């Protein structure tokens, strides 16, 4: 254990993250990333329903989210240096995303699968359903 003695913390070699230090990137990288981000912003506007020139109806959401995620990844990897971080940081960067996944999943197997006991059909979330008077009166 004597070889440990030269470190003040045992952590650094226990779970294999290299010695902590900054990550110096060439300026070029930052400029490119900013460029890419602006282009992507332009794209997402182009594909949007109201501003855009191409229209996909509901596909717009998918496109928008894909583009947004691309932008997010760029920011995280380069501006936030995640690309050069140790696995631990990756873990804690990914964890909230996983949890959001659970969260969304848990709720999207609820509301969309509810049924309306009056018809025994899937529940329709129309204004009239939600603001309807209670069954008692609504019923006749």
């Amino acid at each position: 254990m004597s070889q440990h003695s030269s470190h003040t913390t045992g952590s650094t070699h226990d779970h294999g993250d290299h010695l902590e230090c900054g990550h110096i990137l060439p300026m070029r990288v930052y400029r490119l990333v900013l460029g890419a981000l602006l282009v992507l912003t332009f794209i997402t506007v182009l594909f949007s329903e109201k501003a855009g020139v191409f229209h996909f109806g509901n596909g717009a959401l998918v496109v928008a989210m894909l583009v947004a995620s691309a932008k997010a990844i760029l920011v995280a990897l380069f501006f936030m240096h995640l690309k050069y971080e140790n696995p631990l940081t990756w873990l804690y960067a990914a964890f909230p995303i996983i949890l959001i996944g659970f969260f969304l999943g848990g709720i999207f197997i609820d509301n969309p699968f509810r049924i309306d006991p009056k018809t025994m059909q899937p529940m329709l979330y129309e204004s009239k359903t939600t603001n309807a008077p209670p069954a008692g009166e609504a019923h006749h």
Partner: protein
Amino acid sequence: MSTHTAAHGSHEGQDINYLNHQKGLWSWLTSVDHKRIGILYLLSITLFFILGGIAALFMRTELAFAGPTLKFLTPQMYNVLFTLHGAVMIFIFVVPGIPATMGNFLLPLMIGAKDVAFPRLNLFSYYIYLAGALLALFAVFWGVIEARSLEGALDTGWTFYAPYSIDSGTSVTLMAGAAFVLGFSSILTGLNFVVTIHKLRAPGMTWGRLPVFVWATYATAVIQTLATPVIGITLALLMMERIFGVGIFNADMGGDPVLFQHFFWFYSHPVVYIMVLPAFGVVAEIIPVFSRKPIFGYRAVCYATLAIAFIGFTVWAHHMLVAGISDTSAIFFSIITFAVAIPTAIKVFNWVSTMYRGSISFDTPMLYAMAFVFLFMIAGTTGIYLATLAIDVFYHDTYFVVAHFHYTIQGGAVIGLIAALHFWFPKMSGKMYNETVAKFAFALVFIGFNLTFLPQFGLGMMGMPRRYYDYPIEFETLHTWSTVGAFLNGFGYTFALVNLAYSALFGKVKASSNPYNSLSLEWQTKSPPIHENFEEIPVITEWTYGYGKPLPNTHH
């Protein structure tokens, strides 16, 4: 060698330790020493534990007999009482509970660090906690003043369920704010611990050598950090709902009240593990020491801890199985919930088999630890009922849930905390407590607790709904017993706390640095520890649980 260390500790600088190296209240209020902060937390939560306990005793007295029992207590006041009992016990007592007190005190000692990673942040989160707690009290007083009666204090139940919490005329907004602030303190503590465990372990203190309590604290800290923000936003939205009527949980604007429950339980189920995982850790520390045996299946225990923490994030809606969620999700969440049962079962088996062929002494901490195992068996098995979809349809929101919950939280977290207090008392105070009184108190707590909550399982089976101010006559007998038990339980805690407080302040018996001959690191320094914890940063060469005569084929 330990004897050497101990002697070493007990001679030179006996009188200089973290308690007295600086004098005066101010030195305590401004200290960034994790040990002092731990003590500050301990004193604060004890105060609120007493408050919550008094509320509980008033409730039990009211419920002792059918019909109005206490003349002055209106139904609305009863609602306020059970709400305050819940809110205070959960948000102000149990959640900071073991992590903020024992965790703060022990974590650096156990991993051989001088302090937590961010000592100033640590003190800051204590003051946030204090602010939140005071805000909660203020919320109560404000409500009382506005309504000229106790009826004006919070009356929504600690769960703040919408739409009632939106309509209620009581001081919900303030109380939600208080819980929000408290959550923030919880986040910072958790964050601090995670970083501490990753970055500040002493040389040679590998993950495979960490005490189970540290693993438990780690899992807890992760939950504190990642689950609490969700309750934060939930309460913030509730406040917005009440102030501006943003209509997110308001059915009149198409909001879905059930969604509030999703939000609430996404935090409040994991929070159950914030309460009980550290208690698991405590038991896993106590049993080996008093059995002179290594914890059975160390790895299994540690991984089970992480597994519980992780799965805990995915099962929240089993609190809502009959709340109007779709049958699909009810089925899904019911099945997933059983996944938590398995790692929990593993832990119980490991604790018990640790005692096999040990050399078992029955000091008070060990008694509490064994009681914990018994109580937690009941808590766990009754959890199976509630996870089972068909059975939960009957038990949801009955006294069965109340009893199950208290077996988990009081029988788990609180008994765990009391066990920890007794176990590490010599380290914290440098004194020994009065063993006889402690054992007597234990007996009272154990009998009282079971007498309080076993009858409530019966009530649940008979279909007694929870949160009832009054009840039909057929439930009376069991309620009366439950009340008797509650008072015994209360006396028990009083004895235990008074005993510890008295011994700490006026106790004559000095504690050696390692009275139980434990192997884990916190016992290898003086009792009470010096301000820097260790004279020199220790280098760890051994597993924490190397008790007993090595067998030919042992790893580690």
